[in-house]
């Protein structure tokens, strides 16, 4: 993985600049889409959730170097957390968001001792196994989770008591956009902090880091917890804006999908991963509209092409473009 990593080219002293000109462009495009495509806000909202989820996984894989095939567990737990709370009558969206983040963070905390140890390969197996267990547990707890039927019978109160969620999805979009902006800023802050740099160090060489006094296990555990919490926020957002929570949200397919999305975006590159997630969501929707039956074929071709043609993903392209610009 790290060979594909654009950030690793820059070395530790020069972290990839997440606040390159690309970042304002991303937000300008998102805000513009609100005005330009008022009929596509539901899609845009789901894409924002995908972007948040991708960023959360990128913190884990791209920055801390922890691979996982079960990251959707935290998305699903966040979704269930807010949906179940809403069913109990606590319908405030911000409260739901906090609940989603807390439950996912809590589970990440419990799991971190077994995920943090071991090599990449054991982590793949452990995360996959844990994800299966939680999936089946959610399936069994039918009274709480609705089992295979999912949860749809909950209300979401107006945001801040003022803005009701409307049919066109305006409130949902602006809400998701705000949350995305906060997550983006928080991750930028975290990954450029000394803690973020330590994570990079661990990713590049986990044996040498203790030698300079860095508590590797604790750093990894904290990044796992943080990543879980952010995925939980994404899940809560997904449940609130689609008024639905189901087993599928913590299933293997979403876990595998997010690995693809982050690879497409370029691991370790916040702006690249954000654009990658948006591109993935848009291409998937466009293809499935053109051919409801054979769209997966098209998606496969696009993904393979991206691996061969754009090494280091979209983030890699941005970096190469940036270097080219500086040299000229």
């Amino acid at each position, binding site marked *: 993985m790290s060979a594909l990593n654009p950030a690793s080219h820059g070395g530790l002293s020069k972290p990839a600049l997440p606040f390159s000109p690309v970042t304002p462009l991303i937000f300008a495009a998102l805000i513009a889409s609100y005005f330009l495509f008022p*009929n596509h806000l539901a899609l845009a909202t789901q894409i924002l959730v995908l972007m948040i989820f991708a960023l959360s996984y990128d913190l884990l894989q791209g920055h801390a170097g922890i691979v996982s095939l079960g990251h959707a567990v935290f998305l699903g737990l966040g979704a269930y957390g807010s949906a179940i709370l809403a069913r109990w009558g606590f319908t405030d969206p911000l409260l739901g968001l906090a609940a989603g983040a807390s439950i996912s963070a809590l589970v990440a905390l419990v799991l971190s001792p077994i995920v943090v140890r071991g090599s990449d390969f054991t982590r793949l197996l452990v995360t996959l196994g844990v994800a299966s267990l939680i999936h089946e547990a959610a399936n069994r707890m039918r009274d709480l989770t609705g089992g*295979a039927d999912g949860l749809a019978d909950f209300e979401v109160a107006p945001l801040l008591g003022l803005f009701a969620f409307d049919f066109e999805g305006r409130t949902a979009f602006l809400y998701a956009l705000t949350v995305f902006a906060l997550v983006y800023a928080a991750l930028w802050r975290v990954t450029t902090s000394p803690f973020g740099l330590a994570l990079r160090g661990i990713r590049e060489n986990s044996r040498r880091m203790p030698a300079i006094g860095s508590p590797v296990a604790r750093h990894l555990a904290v990044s796992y917890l943080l990543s879980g919490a952010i995925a939980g926020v994404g899940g809560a957002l997904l449940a609130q804006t689609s008024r639905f929570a189901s087993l599928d949200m913590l299933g293997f397919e979403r876990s595998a999908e997010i690995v693809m999305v982050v690879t497409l975006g370029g691991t370790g590159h916040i702006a690249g991963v954000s654009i990658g997630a948006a591109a993935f969501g848009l291409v998937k929707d466009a293809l499935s509209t053109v051919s409801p039956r054979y769209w997966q074929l098209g998606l496969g071709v696009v993904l393979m092409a991206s691996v061969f043609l754009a090494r280091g993903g979209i983030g890699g392209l941005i970096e190469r473009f940036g270097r080219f610009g500086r040299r000229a």
Partner: protein
Amino acid sequence: MNGDFGWALRAATFGLALATGFSPAAAPAADGKLIVGVILPLSGTFANEGRQYEQGIAAYQKLNGKTVAGQPVEIVTRDDQGPGSGDLARRLTQELILRDKADVIIGYSFTPNAMSAASLLGEAKRPAIIVNAATSIITERSPYFVRVSWTLPQSAATLGDWAAKNGIKTVYTMVSDYAPGIDAETWFKKAFIAGGGQVVGEVRTPVTSMEYAPYLQRVIEAKPDALFAFNPGGDVSVAFMKAARERNLAGAGIKLLVTGDVVEDNSLSLIGEGLDGVISAHHYQSGIASAENERFIKAYKEVAGAEAIPNFRAVQAYDAMDLLYKAVAKAGGKTDATALLEAMKGITLASPRGTITIDPQTRDVVQDVYIRRGEKVDGRWQNRTFETYKAVADPGKTAR
């Protein structure tokens, strides 16, 4: 389905959409056009089911044309990828209404997908005709739902009642461990116990389990008069039926009772000998002798190929279209939700499965349920009807 030209056209639109970065918003529908948004599982594990519905709709249009009450009918199809993707089904519903200006939605093969769209339909004031999703409660979630398919309690409770009245005293139940399975178990037991029967054992099997020998062994040891089983159809049900044959349930003196979707017409050639003597309750089998059914099967084969066998899913989609056409005609060409829903309530249709009615109170289908026995007819395994329960309403609602 739309021919090469249609595909090329869509590819061109797609190119245009990519060029502009986002697909452009659909223009408002021209007046006097009826736009039908169709949501079906067309990719993944359940793509075959999706095909059945799609071809059922196509067969209907082949017979009845693409205009109703002078309005051209335009069909816009979307893929909801199967069960569990309720968030996607909800977004597709919203987009079909907002972008494609759909007047009515037809679709929802799976309960979660219908449930997640329920609140949207009310906000948008658009009726939706359910082509399958069989959990009883769905139609109570939104007054804009009309169900033309079936409910699991309809089949399971009818079978329970029949068993109690036909000399079966003790039953063991074996259902797949998910909501429809639990619906089937609950309603079979309710009707069977009410009729004086006794349930001597019950087990729930994993939804995708392909290995039934150990469960069947336990059933054989319990020596009930019959085993009632439900599983999700497709490969899983074929595996179950084969295992029941191999364990020789019949030889142990245990009758096998199943809901009709376990032994649907499409999988009979795979089940083969396993169908021998199996009792099932269902609302359609291709052997129904009626002019409507003959017409339907002929049109279906013209659309899907001479070898294709339509099952209950194709019939349900065909009837969904019939319900829509008849309702538009009855409402004098009006296509707004109030007029359509009023026209649909209480309407009676001559379906390939027999006469069906939409209950004006519950908006749920009322239909005959056939009790069938698996037999070999003219060298082919079939479900032969020997008793008919007339005009069965959803017990999930009448019981309350």
